[in-house]
């Protein structure tokens, strides 16, 4: 077992760095920059049962701390992912992926998750109940603990692989929701998806995003995301993947210390395509300098 090795519900990763859904495509966009096999894992673009064209342009805006996006779950649908994309990905990527599943009804979530669960390349089903950019689905399930628990239980019955639930920070009582999602059969949590926000054009006063609102991400949300992990950790018994504004090795260390067993990096991949190899070097340097034998020793130390 290497210094950086972590284990998520039986899935061993060579390091705790996972690329967040929606920022890593299907893994192949980073091949121009580095061998993607160096990454712990990555979460595929949010996938739905049927193809989706997503929101109108513009879908992207920036702020001092990062980005806002309102892509709106554009994806080619689960059959295309399974039949066209996974075979290509398997030629270049030897690891397992997190399959990010989204939907607009319980039946849709279940059918999509079931199809992805059958695929060898999928290691974890990541149930996305937190997309802020679609209406009538996504985040709607993540705002209400009873809804989230019901959906988790339904998907749990359809899949054999570990089921992680990706939550929204907009949820009014995240601790309660996480507890109930655990009781409903979730094997892990991903905390958190983007924060809802907006930008206005300084000349016209109109929204910069066609969708008006978007998901706020990037280093500007890191302290808030870190706090959600810190807040939930003492109340659950399942692993947490920390997510939100992680941009460097030091952020990974903080997330682990707050209680995360692994960490997702999103926006920083888009801003710096070499982010993952840099973070991995920083983690190796940190462990060597601090005489840390296993990076898992850092998990939850903020609470000790």
């Amino acid at each position: 077992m290497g210094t950086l090795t972590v284990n998520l519900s039986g899935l061993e990763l060579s390091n705790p760095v996972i690329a967040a859904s929606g920022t890593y495509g299907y893994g192949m966009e980073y091949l121009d920059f580095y061998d993607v096999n160096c990454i712990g894992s990555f979460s595929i673009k949010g996938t739905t049962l049927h193809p989706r064209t997503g929101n109108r342009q513009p879908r992207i805006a920036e702020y001092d701390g990062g980005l806002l996006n309102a892509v709106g779950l554009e994806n080619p649908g689960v059959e295309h992912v399974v039949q066209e994309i996974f075979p290509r990905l398997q030629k270049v990527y030897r690891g397992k992926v997190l399959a990010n599943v989204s939907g607009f009804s319980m039946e849709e979530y279940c059918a999509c998750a079931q199809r992805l669960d059958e695929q060898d390349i999928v290691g974890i089903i990541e149930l996305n109940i937190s997309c802020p950019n679609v209406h009538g689905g996504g985040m709607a399930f993540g705002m209400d603990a009873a809804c989230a628990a019901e959906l988790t239980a339904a998907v749990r019955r359809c899949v054999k692989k570990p089921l992680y639930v990706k939550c929204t920070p907009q949820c009014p009582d995240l601790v309660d929701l996480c507890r109930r999602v655990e009781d409903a059969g979730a094997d892990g949590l991903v905390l958190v998806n983007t924060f809802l926000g907006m930008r206005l054009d300084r000349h016209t006063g109109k929204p910069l995003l066609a969708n008006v609102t978007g998901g706020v991400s990037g280093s500007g949300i890191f302290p808030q995301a870190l706090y959600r992990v810190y807040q939930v950790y003492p109340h659950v018994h399942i692993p947490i993947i920390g997510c939100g504004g992680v941009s460097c090795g030091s952020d990974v260390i903080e997330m682990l210390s707050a209680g995360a067993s692994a960490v997702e990096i999103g926006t920083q991949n888009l801003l710096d395509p070499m982010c993952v190899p840099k973070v991995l070097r920083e983690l190796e340097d940190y462990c060597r300098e601090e005489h840390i034998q296993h990076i898992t020793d850092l998990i939850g130390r903020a609470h000790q």
Partner: protein
Amino acid sequence: MELHTCAILDNHPVAPETYQLTVHCAAASQTRCGQFADIAIPGKKLRRPLSITDWTDNTLTFTYRVVGEGTDWLSRQHQGELELLTGCGNGFDLTAFSRDILLMGGGIGCAPLLGTARQALAQGLAVKLLLGFGNPEQALFQKELSGLDVEAVYCYDSLGENVAQALVRLGWQDLPFCACGPLPMLRAVCQASQAPGQVSLEARMGCGFGACMGCSVQLKERMARVCKDGPVFHRKEIVWEHLL
């Protein structure tokens, strides 16, 4: 695509609010005219995609208009280094042209057409250009094009003629074309021309290398990322109602 740290060799105004920037850069990943590079701006999260006007073995030249804080910062840089992501996008496919090529541009959309004209000439094509600007003061590349064996026509909104109108007046509607400019101009030239054509689209981009889907547009039969699958698409693929 490659990440490069490039020394600024030159950055000077060529028209009102319009500059030409040349950097030292091994242009290995630059394979086609109509590609772009993504330039990092200190203090800004997103790199700015700039169309490549021309290139040599070790330089890249951009022509850009100041439209916001990022390009304003860039216009004030005369030395030092810039971080670039090069070789972005598909560029124009000149192998699709056998004898004639018409290059049409609107405003700063003319930026990639100088290099495209040189490449087309090198390929033995008969090159015509139709370039439209708001007024004569804004015109680009007049001197450079006068030294090339091309037929270049300029038109100006201020003088009452846009690119699509000039296309009809000149009777060039049957010439296969490459076009770059604002969406209304691209739609107008596609409506006026009957010939096969390639159009270069513009979109607000996120990553610039195809990972975020921030710039995806809906084409006739597929979704396409302007930064990676484009920015150049065949006119047959475009559904203007989806874009405008």
